[in-house]
């Protein structure tokens, strides 16, 4: 396996999937998180419990859902509960280990913007908004973010904080009495970042094979920090790639050649 044998999207998805432990209860966002969570389920974590905000608990879809409430999620779930119940009993109730999310923009403390680029009242670009992310970011035991890295997405200052990461760093989450630990990892198509244990500022701890520190600097608007000893992401295994490609092929076929956005 060489870096040319897989795409940057594939290694991002595979690196994110590896972070999910077998048996974990995982509250899954649509798109990249859902792809990675299902890859984890189909590889090393067969007993992972996938919860989607529309109500399915223990979903085991054979194709990736295009929307957060696809019928395939309900059909393969252990149970389907109402949306109020999902948020009240299961998420706020403290039964979710990992919130698995994506974002349009994040900052150095992994705060998330999915609301607006520009001024709220006179938006440059109006984004879809919060969805369940504010509650997931507050209440899940921990949060893993997965998104492609670019200077437009990894910004010095967010135009809008939709969902909280580590706020202004340090013990800010504890001071606000937020129940969950917040983001523990950000996986991109270039690297893996983890919050510094004391300051909570995102620090690159692992590079994907063939990726340089310079590429990461260029794709980050703030001056990104690097851990003193950088690890390299293990190359995708043949099995990981085969299962991911199979899953995406089945999905394209089922959705009429649409890609799961």
């Amino acid at each position, binding site marked *: 396996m060489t870096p040319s044998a897989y795409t940057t999207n594939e290694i991002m998805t595979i690196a994110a999937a590896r972070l999910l432990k077998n048996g974990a209860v995982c509250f899954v966002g649509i798109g990249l998180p859902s792809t990675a969570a299902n890859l984890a389920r189909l590889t090393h974590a067969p007993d992972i419990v996938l919860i989607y905000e529309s109500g399915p608990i223990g979903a085991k879809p054979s194709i990736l859902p295009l*929307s957060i409430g696809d019928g395939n999620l309900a059909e393969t779930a252990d149970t389907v509960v109402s949306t109020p119940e999902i948020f009240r009993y299961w998420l706020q109730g403290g039964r979710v280990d990992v919130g698995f999310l994506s974002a349009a923009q994040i900052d150095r403390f992994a705060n998330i913007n999915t609301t607006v680029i520009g001024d709220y009242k006179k938006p440059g670009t109006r984004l879809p908004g919060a969805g369940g992310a*504010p*509650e997931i970011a507050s209440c899940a035991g921990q949060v893993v973010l997965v998104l492609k890295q670019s200077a437009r997405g990894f910004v010095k200052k967010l135009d809008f*904080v939709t969902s909280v990461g580590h706020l202004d760093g340090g013990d800010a989450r504890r001071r606000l009495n937020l129940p969950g630990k917040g983001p523990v990892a950000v996986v991109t198509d270039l690297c893996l970042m983890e919050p510094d244990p004391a300051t909570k500022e995102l620090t690159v701890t692992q590079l994907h094979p063939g990726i340089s520190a310079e590429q990461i600097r260029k794709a980050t608007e703030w001056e990104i920090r690097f851990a003193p000893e950088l690890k390299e992401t293990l190359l995708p295994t043949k099995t990981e790639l085969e299962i991911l490609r199979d899953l995406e092929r089945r999905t394209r076929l089922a959705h009429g050649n649409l890609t799961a956005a």
Partner: protein
Amino acid sequence: MAEITTLREAIAGLVRDGDVVAMEGFTHLIPFAAGHEVLRQQRRNLTLVRMTPDVIYDQLIGAGCAKKLIFSWGGNPGVGSLHRLRDAVEHDWPAPLEIQEHGHGDLANAYVAGASNLPFAVLRAYAGSDLPKHNDKIKFIQCPFTGESLAAVPSIRPDVTVIHAQKSDRKGNILLWGILGVQKEAVLAAKRAIVTVEEIVDELNAWPNACILPHWTISAVCRVPGGGFPSYAHGYYERDNRFYQAWDAVARDRDTFQKWIKAHILDTDNFEEFRQVLAESVSQET
């Protein structure tokens, strides 16, 4: 007591200009036929409430039916933007749209509070988020027992809630299964409720806890087969992902959108005719 009636009569009698209207259905069972009928009857100044506005509200907003939107996620699921919603928010077209924006857990709780006849919902959320700075309906209160700071939001009490379900019996008892969303809460929070169904049967033959809404909680039940299209009805038909994809191009341009609305909704008599016209326009394209 539910009246079994036509969708046209139900909307004419129960949805009024200026109403607070909730049309719910979380990706599943979105009441598109009813949304079209509201548009066809050209209701105005509506306050639309829905967790995910989806294409159903993109159509109503673009057609000028709404003055305000209360929501928590405004995208085209699996596709991208809702262009009519964005155009209204970004450029005031066709009219300025006031928005009141929440998170999903918040709106779900607000419906529960409405159904519970409480003035507000309480939840653990929004600490550190900018949403409360731009939405004065999100406040923080102190727990009288522990002192913990918690978010409070007003309950949602729609004038009328509209949902789509799989089945009712001839009295109007409603069966709904699969992804449940917030439909039960949205109906019980509302003054009036309209339910469109795939079919009306003599006997529901269901388990005792499967009838989620007894007939006397509903104002009108209307049989509209396919009434959730292009969303889906579990056990009846699947989501039409191609429609959602194609909607992106229709809604992107004001002129294209207006022509589409005129040909498919304003110039058709009902949902059945809409489906025929749509099938013709799709077959011409391919």
